[in-house]
């Protein structure tokens, strides 16, 4: 957006840069008014929000971890979007990734493996499971013409129920039932399969998933902008018939693109499991797939946009949760406020592009 704004004369540039800012501030003000109207204390809410987002090492680390998950989903989304595919199945891809990573991490031989393999193999298993899940939608698209929006979404529901099934059945991943109060969860994964922390601070949940995410973001940027594969995805996305005429393997490219998007989702699930949650439970993906989708959509195909959006959403979500818990703001209301901010950002992006369009 800044690169885009730089091409404009001063007044327009100023306007273009201030629009998103004003939009966010405006929607926040509306949010605070809503909080006031609901009878909660506005200063308390603000304090709770800031505390939850940045206040402590724990809060900060949790926000960043959240941003990592959202970035990975967003990266997968923009990669598939380059081929004109819309992957809305991030949530389900996270789920299958989490299942696969848990299953492998809990398999006794894995925990004892040297050279970090105990961490890497479950991560890979999650990635592959996600790729498979995305690939199914790809195959359905090229073989039967099923719209990927529908197939990825429905496969997502299937995956979420699979998590439920896995943690309800002791034959699968549920921990041994010793009493009637045993929760429907998996056993915690062994320490050797957990992602290493990034800081010495024991309070901080920040883990090396952040490094992995940044490396993958760089790789995605290179693939999209510099690689022949990226150019082929673009050609397929812009004009499938011409791409096929030019000898590109259209069907394979589409399946691979959705497979990669799914792989990002599966990896996200594995990272969430091995980095923070450590045991599988129903609903562990908690909407990250859909938030990541929004991040991907708002980024307009830019890798940096994905990272920025994910950071923004990471802090927003953490602060929102804290607002619920500490200031008693109803969760529905925090969601409304977050929705307002999304609309404001999306709207201002469109407005900025219009301004630029008028320039040409």
């Amino acid at each position, binding site marked *: 957006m800044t690169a885009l704004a730089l091409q404009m004369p001063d007044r327009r540039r100023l306007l273009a840069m201030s629009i998103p800012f004003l939009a966010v501030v405006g929607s926040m003000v509306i949010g605070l008014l809503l909080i006031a109207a609901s009878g909660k204390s506005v200063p308390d809410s603000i304090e709770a929000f800031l505390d939850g987002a940045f206040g402590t090492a724990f809060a900060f680390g949790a926000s960043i971890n959240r941003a990592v998950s959202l970035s990975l989903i967003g990266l997968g989304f923009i990669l598939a979007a380059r081929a004109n595919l819309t992957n809305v199945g991030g949530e389900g891809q996270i789920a299958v990734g989490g299942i696969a990573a848990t299953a492998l991490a809990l398999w006794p031989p894995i925990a004892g493996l040297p050279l970090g393999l105990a961490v890497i193999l479950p991560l890979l298993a999650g990635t592959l499971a996600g790729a498979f899940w995305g690939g199914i939608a790809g195959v359905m698209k090229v073989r039967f013409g099923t719209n990927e929006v529908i197939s990825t979404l429905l496969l997502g529901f299937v995956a979420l129920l699979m998590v439920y099934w896995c943690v309800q059945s002791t034959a699968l991943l549920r921990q041994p039932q010793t009493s009637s109060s045993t929760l429907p969860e998996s056993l915690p994964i062994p320490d050797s399969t957990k992602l290493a922390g990034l800081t010495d601070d024991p309070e901080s949940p920040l883990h090396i998933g952040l490094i992995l995410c940044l490396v993958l973001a760089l790789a995605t940027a*290179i693939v999209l902008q*510099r*690689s*022949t*594969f*990226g*150019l*082929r995805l*673009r*050609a397929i996305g*812009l*004009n499938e*018939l*011409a*791409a*096929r*005429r*030019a*000898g*590109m*393997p259209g069907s394979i490219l589409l399946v691979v693109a959705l497979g990669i998007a799914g792989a990002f989702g599966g990896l996200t699930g594995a990272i969430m499991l091995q980095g923070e949650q450590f045991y599988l439970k129903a609903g562990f993906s908690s909407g990250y797939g859909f938030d990541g989708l929004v991040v991907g959509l708002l980024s307009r195909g830019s890798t940096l946009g994905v990272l920025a959006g994910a950071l923004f959403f990471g802090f927003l979500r953490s602060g929102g949760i804290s607002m619920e818990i500490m200031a008693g703001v109803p969760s529905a209301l925090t969601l409304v406020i977050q929705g307002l901010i999304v609309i404001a950002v999306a709207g201002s992006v469109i407005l900025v592009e219009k301004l630029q369009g008028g320039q040409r």
Partner: protein
Amino acid sequence: MAQSASPPLLALDGLGKRFGSLQALEGVTLDVQAGTVHCLLGENGAGKSTLCNLIFGVYAPSAGQMRFGERPWLPSSPAEALEQGIAMVHQHFSLVPRMTVVENLMLGQAKGILKRREFGDRIRDIADRFGFVLDPDAVVGELSVGERQRSEIVKCLMRDPKLLVLDEPTAVLPPGEIGALLDICRRVADSGRAVILVTHKLAEIAKVADSVAVLRTGRLVAKADMKTADMGALVHAMVGREVKPLDVALSDSKEADSKEGDSTDAGAAPVRPGFALVCDGLCVQDRHGATRLDNFTLEVRPGEIVGLAGVEGNGQSELGMVLAGLLAPTEGRYFIGETELTHASAAAVTAAGGGIVPEDRHAVACVTAMSVAENMYLNKLDRFTRFGLLQRRALNEAAAVQMKEFDVRAAGPDVAFSGLSGGNQQKAVLGRELTLDPLVALIAAQPTRGLDVSAVEAVYRQIRAAARRGVGVLLISSELDELIAVADRIAVLYRGRLVGERPAEMGERGAIGALMSGQGI
């Protein structure tokens, strides 16, 4: 000429329509009498649809006047045209497939309480009166194309129009149903109404038309009474190219080429034995089971340019898609050189040395949002790939060289392809396909469509040069004069079948024109 004493039902006087810088229609003066079938002939893009849309009130004319009946005619909308007695059957039907005929026909006509029985009876009455059968309770989705078309016609006739316009009504019909449609048209005309039939297939409607008008590039180029009309002349009027200097240029360079070729032939031209391109009994059926290409057999030798003439819509598109590797033929085989490509992919066609210039440049030949360089090497990107990364500088440099060689004029290799003129786009596509290695056969479909005169010349110069190098060329075109100027022999496609072959000489124009219009088969 001397029209009957009664004033015309519809009179157009100097009608013109301009869209931005495009003059779609200019100075059209035409009378349509009540009780007659009037045929409007012209190629795609000749202005037929624009003319219909003016009459039907979709657009307002930018010049000229119309009269309908007694009054000046300037409908503000299709609804007003319908109200005043003009009805139109569009090429694409507007019927809801899952509803019955009577339900479809009640849409927009019935108000308040639905009287199915009464409507059904009216449908049967109309069908009876005009000599056909239509079951009002049949579900539209289960009807044949012809029956669906009859439903549309009944829908129009229920409004009791004075003028019925049919846009390309025969294009969608299988051969067996065309006769029935023409009978209906005759009866509608005999009931005192006027019928305008829009088509580019003259022979099919010749039986029923009373008079005919030919449109080309927005102008009325011929009017005739069907009883006395010369069919060959009408087809020429429809497809002929009027740019005289071009023909001369083409003919001259053809002679110059052949002379040049004679002098250097002995050593240079590597004439390969065998065939460059072989089509053996290719058939294509569309989704509805209609035969689009029927037992198409043709051989092109190395160094030969074979022209495939025909009015558009006679199977050229399907043939082009089959030869490009984008459509599997229902039957038959296809070879380039020694390689069988019948069910091969587009990549295999390219690898076997088949250069393809598709008829629809924007849909098939290029990705307009990508750069000129990317488009010129779209099928050769591997050449510029190292470790998976695209060597953009090398790509742009190579493209710059090729742009010079093929005279592609653009600000640079990295500008968007969409910014190029049609001629430069086509030269870029041609350059891409002509630089295949090996190049055995070139299949160029309507390669000069929409190009200006100089671009047309450049395209044909390149095609001829390729033939001199020993490439077998199949040139699919509806521009007869161009084919005569460029090709060695001309085969004619009509209704998906090869109906004849003639030498590419000016003296054969009449014979080829007759074949194109389906005469003498």
